[in-house]
């Protein structure tokens, strides 16, 4: 079983459409992070959310942390081909002092022009 269930696994949309990626768990996290990974590269941090109910915006990307800190979502408005990539959610379990990250399987997003 996955500690963090990420969905959908694949998403293929047209430029200009909106999309949402979900990251769910039965565990509580002290923080949850979203990364973007390009082929042949390491994950690059997009945002960290730490407070239940927190919403953070990064241009056209909106990240939300669930009130109970068990889930998170990434919403992209008016997707562009440059948004194409692998999006990963990862969390630090509540009580962890060592920062071990648990990753979801990722969502491969393809935005067609």
């Amino acid at each position, binding site marked *: 079983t*996955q500690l963090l269930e990420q969905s959908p696994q694949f998403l293929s949309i047209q430029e200009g459409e909106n999309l949402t990626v979900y990251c769910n768990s039965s565990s509580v996290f*002290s*923080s949850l*992070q979203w*990364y973007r990974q390009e082929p*042949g*590269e*390491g*994950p*690059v*941090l997009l945002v*960290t959310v*730490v407070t239940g109910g927190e919403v953070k915006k990064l241009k056209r990307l909106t990240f939300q942390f669930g009130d109970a800190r068990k889930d998170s979502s990434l919403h992209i408005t008016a997707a562009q081909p440059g948004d194409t990539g692998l999006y*990963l959610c*990862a969390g*630090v379990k509540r009580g962890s002092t*060592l*920062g*071990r*990250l*648990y*990753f*979801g*399987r*990722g969502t491969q997003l393809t935005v067609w022009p």
Partner: protein
Amino acid sequence: EPEVTQTPSHQVTQMGQEVILRCVPISNHLYFYWYRQILGQKVEFLVSFYNNEISEKSEIFDDQFSVERPDGSNFTLKIRSTKLEDSAMYFCASRTSSGANVLTFGAGSRLTVL
């Protein structure tokens, strides 16, 4: 912008051979990590290292694996006797002692075991 550097970018080895993957974390970071990603699978935690000792390791990190910080800048992952299933991308990451566990990842070392 400071970055984590990893070498080699790609290594091909025969099963049973020893492999050392090298990492230079960001200079003022104090926590160091190795993660791996088997092709098509999720990124998995291997080990964390702080104050010159392992602070946490996963069930993947068995006796075939070891880590070392031989000097003030390098952080290495050694696999003593590689197996086919060790083929993966290995990512080094580091972070400061403060902040909300924000890790900076290297670009990875691709290990192919034949």
